[in-house]
């Protein structure tokens, strides 16, 4: 049976790229294959075994901070140069260990995506972890980002949008990344005593980037009021909370009533924030914002308004339940039209290379992270809370293309003795391969060149 364009779209656009045999195995019912991945039982992912929980990470962070503080004090107290050096190297080692943990965890998440029998689910995980961006540009987050994906994102991808928003907002990685853990109500007991005040970073970005969107109808005053509401939402550094890593510090919370989007929130501690997040999740602006991003990710950089409208309606009608939203997405005819409408991000490109070649288990953790580095998309390191762009113009420039070709060459060098280029072409881009690409791959001077060209081709660079 000849695999169809629909199979290619299911595997490449909705999934993370073809593995050997995918086109043949899935060609009878590509849409049904996508649907089957929306079953929470099917996607229980054992490959995350051993990944530290959020509470483990918070404990490690606390021990780490205590050790460093002690080492700094000890170093300051001693006059002996040898001891000073010893303390300095202790701090350095702790930092290296954090970096190594990050590298190991990114590699583990990468392998989980590559090995997964549910790549559509894995793509949705990556969509949402990018929507709720946390980033190691805040160094303390190195230890927390993988736990963020494990505990705030993955359990909610097939759940409800509000629950994911709630989990993300409470998570220590987000509290650190957008500065909320040390935002104090200026009139709170702790704020008064320590002379500390508001930081409005998280409040603004929740409205602008996680829910309503920038034109979602809020003002600077709403940002400030929501920042007051969120005071006290912090990290469970002392182990006083419910084991999730979150703690509500009443002494840090701004007292009094607040007015947000025209609604008065009477003083009610942590419940004010809970209610505000609920209201954001239910706001029609949020439905529109999420629908637009989803359509941009799965259809085109400038998605058709008709598709956005259908997704928006599905989001609202189902009160933010995500599985019916994905079902609507799969049913959109616009998503099945142009098989090469989207450029793969570097992340997509790397995962599709690893799936095509099945070499992820033979590549060192450091080299896996190195590939992302090379293409400027190291996981959890977006340079802004808006996350990575989903538009071709932000990913394809002269240098970016050279880096992609170089990575294609790296893979070709590694695997050219094990694969027949023509067969690899069929198993990765067969249903949509153009005459130009077939010509290039069959006429290349060597298997290595042929595979470099295959992985550099428009059909492999797009989805």
């Amino acid at each position: 049976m000849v695999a169809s364009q629909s199979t290619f779209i299911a595997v490449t656009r909705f999934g993370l790229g073809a593995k050997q045999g995918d086109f043949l195995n899935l060609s009878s019912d590509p849409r049904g294959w996508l649907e089957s991945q929306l079953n929470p039982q099917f996607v229980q992912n054992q490959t995350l075994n051993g990944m530290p929980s959020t509470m483990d990470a918070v404990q490690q962070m606390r021990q780490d901070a205590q050790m460093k503080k002690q080492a700094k004090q000890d170093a300051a107290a001693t006059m002996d140069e040898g001891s000073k050096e010893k303390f300095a190297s202790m701090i350095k080692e702790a930092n290296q260990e954090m970096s190594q943990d990050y590298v190991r965890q990114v590699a583990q998440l990468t392998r989980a995506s590559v090995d997964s029998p549910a790549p559509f689910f894995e793509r949705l995980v990556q969509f949402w972890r990018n929507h709720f961006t946390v980033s190691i540009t805040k160094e303390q987050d190195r230890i927390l980002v993988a736990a963020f994906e494990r505990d705030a994102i993955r359990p909610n991808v097939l759940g409800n949008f509000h629950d994911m928003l709630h989990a993300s907002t409470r998570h220590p990685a987000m509290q650190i990344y957008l500065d909320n853990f040390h935002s104090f109500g200026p009139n709170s007991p702790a704020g008064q005593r320590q002379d500390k005040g508001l930081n409005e970073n998280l409040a603004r970005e929740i409205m602008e980037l996680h829910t309503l969107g920038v034109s979602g109808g809020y003002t600077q005053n709403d940002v400030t009021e929501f920042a007051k509401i969120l005071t006290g939402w912090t990290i469970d550094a002392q182990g006083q909370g419910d084991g999730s890593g979150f703690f509500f510090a009443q002494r840090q919370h701004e007292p009094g009533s607040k007015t947000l989007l025209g609604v008065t929130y009477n003083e009610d501690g942590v419940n004010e924030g809970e209610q505000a997040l609920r209201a954001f999740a239910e706001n029609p602006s949020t439905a529109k914002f999420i629908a637009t991003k989803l359509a941009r990710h799965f259809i085109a950089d400038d998605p058709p308004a008709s598709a956005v409208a259908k997704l928006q309606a599905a989001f609202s009608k189902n009160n933010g339940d995500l599985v019916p939203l994905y079902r609507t997405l799969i049913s959109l005819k616009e998503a099945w039209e142009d098989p090469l409408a989207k450029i793969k991000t570097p992340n997509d490109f790397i995962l599709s290379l690893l799936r095509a070649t099945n070499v992820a288990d033979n590549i060192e953790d450091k080299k896996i992270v190195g590939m992302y580095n090379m293409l400027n998309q190291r996981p959890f390191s977006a340079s802004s809370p808006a996350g990575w762009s989903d538009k071709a113009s932000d990913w394809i420039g002269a240098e970016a293309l050279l880096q992609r070709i170089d990575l294609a060459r790296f893979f070709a060098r590694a695997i050219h003795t094990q694969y027949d280029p023509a067969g690899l072409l069929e198993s990765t881009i067969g249903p949509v391969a153009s005459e130009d690409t077939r010509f290039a791959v069959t006429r290349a001077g060597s298997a290595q060149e042929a595979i470099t060209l295959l992985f550099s081709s428009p059909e492999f660079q797009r989805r």
Partner: protein
Amino acid sequence: MKSIIKDTTLSRRKLLKGVGCLAAATMFSGIRVAFASAPVDERFIFIILRGAMDGLNAIPPYGDTSYQTARNGIALGSSDYQPLDNFFGAHNNLASFAGMFKTGEALAIQAVATPYRERSHFDAQNVLESGGVQPHIINDGWLNRALALYGSQGDSLGLAVGQTIPLALQGKVGVGTWAPSAQGLPDDTMLMALDRLYQHDTLLHTALAQAVGVHSIADGDLGGADGMKKMGGGGKNLQNKEVMEQTVQAVGKILSDPKGPRIATIEIGGWDTHAQQGTDKGPLANNLAALDTGFGALRDSLGEHWKKTVVLAATEFGRTVAQNGTSGTDHGTASCAFLLGGAVNGGKVVAQWPGLGGNNLYQNRDLAPTIDLRQVAKAVLINHLQLDQTMVEKNVFLGSSDLRPIEGLIRA
């Protein structure tokens, strides 16, 4: 598909080597000569400071009697800046800038902003780069539209430093990108095969052609792949002084090539100092030092071309005047911009100072904007790049005819 790999001396030498076989000869039938004589000899570099720079501590208005009180706790102390005049100073880490200010090659513009008045980074950067009056009403960049005024000669005049092109340079006119990279161009055979492979994919084909054009100039001067390796690949971390210096030296060489590009963008992030931003030391001070290193390296590497150069460094908006609850600053409105280069009529701080005291703050929290950044950009386009004012107002900064370019920024 028209444009093919750019024909510079090096690329032609490299490519002709490969024409031994029949396939290669047919593939290159489409080569055309580009990088002919450029229509403009002036250089312009736009440095985009992403994240909202705190202009009040970059160019502190120390003479404003409210500066210390309004900035409670994060105001620079009197030993943290050097005076530029009897009212404004420059942060100590802007030493190269201050030096150029004294020799008349640099100026600052204070209390300047784009027309955008909200506080979203991403919308504000969209306005800064698109040149529109609101976010997302124009899809291309003002610098690309300026290049379009050179007609077909505008192709290959623009260069984005980085792996991809920022919105400011995106648009109809072809623009190259360059970043220090470890491997340079693929070999000739591969290039020719790629050229054919991409012939029906405009996006990839254009990127390939631009890569060949720019690398032909850059690679020769920089010790090739080995020289680049230690700079860490993509050259993305311009907040590191050493990376900044080496990257900018290479940019200076590319812009010095007689047939090379004339107009470039450089992006530097890390200005979003919500917490612990510091005064004489800290994240803001470190970023200013990296930027200042870039200023100095541009001057040095452009050599004789510096006298024909203008550099504009600007950010999307400023930060709150008062510090927030975490010894940082939140999103604000007006900031400062830097203008430097041998063609700049420097040695002054251009401002209509709104004041920091009493009721002078915008929405009771931010430095009030009194100059529109487009007044500065228009002056550069019209007085430095010699573009026609009517065309600039019609095509680059649409509907800005009421907004006069500031006089006296560029040497006559």
